């Protein structure tokens, strides 16, 4: 595998840019071993941001991608799809969290920028050791189990059943209905509960 890393530093509007000098981080990234391209953008998760990643992959023959932005819980899937869209294996990608773990928890711009550089350096080092991973598939049994026959369980069971799927609804008591059946009229419409 060739070592051709692309680094994409997100500004997240001012969420990141206010505390971290992203241009400086990109400039630093360009000097890291293996990195052939680095840039910044205002919203990397947006459509033009993803387009930027896809185009850079083909233009610079990138093999590994690092996105320095928010928490992976927020946008790992977004960027993985963009990487796949650019023609790479989705796991030749690392996300570096410079928002929740940097710009949002620090005030001092110089130190926060330095930390972002450290985090990007770690991400680049890791992505160079990434291997393409393959997604496998498993079959799905199309029958749902709903545990609890109160208002929530009944509604979920009905909706799934209406969509044409089998549902097993388990209730601890001898009748469904749950707490709701013990209630008199209900707010704010004062209609009956049973």
């Amino acid at each position, binding site marked *: 595998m060739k070592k051709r890393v692309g680094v994409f530093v997100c500004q997240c509007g001012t969420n990141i840019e206010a505390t971290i000098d992203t241009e400086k981080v990109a400039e630093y990234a360009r000097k890291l071993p293996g990195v052939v391209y680095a840039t910044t953008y205002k919203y990397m998760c947006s459509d033009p941001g993803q387009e930027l990643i896809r185009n850079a992959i083909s233009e610079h023959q990138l093999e590994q991608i690092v996105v320095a932005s928010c928490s992976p819980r927020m946008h790992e899937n977004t960027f993985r799809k963009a990487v796949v869209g650019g023609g790479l294996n989705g796991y030749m990608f690392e996300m570096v969290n410079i928002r929740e773990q940097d710009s949002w928890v620090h005030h001092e711009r110089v130190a926060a920028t330095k930390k972002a550089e450290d985090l990007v350096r770690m991400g680049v*080092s890791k992505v160079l050791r990434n291997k393409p991973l393959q997604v496998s598939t498993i079959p799905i049994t199309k029958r749902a189990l709903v545990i609890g026959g109160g208002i929530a369980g009944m509604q979920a069971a009905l909706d799934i059943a209406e969509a044409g799927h089998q549902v097993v609804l388990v209730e601890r008591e001898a009748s469904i209905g749950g707490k709701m059946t013990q209630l008199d009229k209900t707010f704010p419409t004062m209609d009956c509960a049973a």
Partner: protein
Amino acid sequence: MVAVAQHPNIELVTYAEVSKISGYIGNFQVQIKKKAKYVDWDACTGCGLCTEKCPTKKLKDEFDLGMGLRPAIHKLFPQAVPGKPYIDAGNCRKLTEDKCGVCEKICPVGAIRFDDQDQYLDYEIGAIVMATGYDLFGWEEAYGEYGYGKYPDVISGLHFERLVSAGGPTQGHIRRPSDGKEPKQVAFIKCVGSRDDTKGKSYCSRACCMYTAKHAYQVKTKIEDSEAYVFYMDVRTAGKNYEEFYQRALNEGATFIRGRVSKIYPKGDKLVLKSEDTLIGRPIEVEVDMVVLATAMVPSQGSLELAKTIGFSTDKDGWYQEAHPKLQPVETFSAGVYLAGACQGPKDIPDSVAQASAAAVKVCGLFSKSELATEPMVSEVDMGKCSGCALCVPICPYNAISLKEIQERGGHGHGPFTRMVAEVNSSLCQGCGACIPACRTAALNLKGYTDEQLVSEVDALCL
């Protein structure tokens, strides 16, 4: 309720509990324990003759929270779905003393089965919706100042619901439990167990402000010359038409007093509430006939054990933990397990229904595919390094690791032999990495987070 029972795609299993769950998203194996009902529901027509003739009539009715009476063979409530009776085995004279047996003699279709046993049913399941709901906070143990449950006319909001319900023990006439008299002055205390770090829970139970407004409204409209006093910390009416409803209760003449009640004590056949009106900064005392406590919602009994059985997490208060508070509110950290209603946190009816539909859509989305792509960042075993010590097996929170026997060719004077090595079920593994530090021979590695990759990150930072 009836729509659920009649739907051809829904199999209703009541008086039953989930006893075992194994497997993973798309492929769960579930065992359900159907408790013995001692009535053959296929034969039973629900005519109700057995309930009428059962001589053991004076049992406290749990559905009416002990305020009414029921026989040993009974429906949970008259409109129960399915509308069939079952025998409360612990209180049936036939089942405990081998006497009586009246129900068996009079049942016109011969549906009584005194030899009924618990049954275990097995199902293949693709997705699970948790909808285990809530219970009410046991205020009797925590709130000594409200009488530890000693005063019969200090009741919970759910007791009040039964009193005011047309199907309740008083047919909807508000009567206080001690002497059956109609109370003229009723006090309501909000946040009993909610928003109370010292005695109860830190959270707001969300529905109480509204049902207390409803209760006060019902007292004012159902009882002539009545007074309804509501003691509150805040009035929270964040819902569509909720503030308007609260105003309706105020317009009916309900008195809202901002203050915590510090003590309730009996005086003759009345109850005296000592409190402070914090808006005018003066201590006050109110004499009433009945007190209704808006008790906190707590997770349903047994819900914690169920979470452990299935293998997903709960929060600090025992509510089921959603995968993300904003972006994945009905998903759990266990793939294929979704949350609906109050099991995730206190909720009122509109929110429960909305969340249930959301969970249903997640299930339908999953079922719209015939195959599911799995996350490849899972644990893998280097069998050459694995010593078969099995330390990783109990550590896995998803029961994804098991031992398997492998054949070795032998050598150095030994013939072929077998040994045990760990095996990871890649469909069950969620890639949490808990097994990695447990592996003493470094045979386990998380794909995408290998030791080599992690060390390279540390090196990049430190060297």
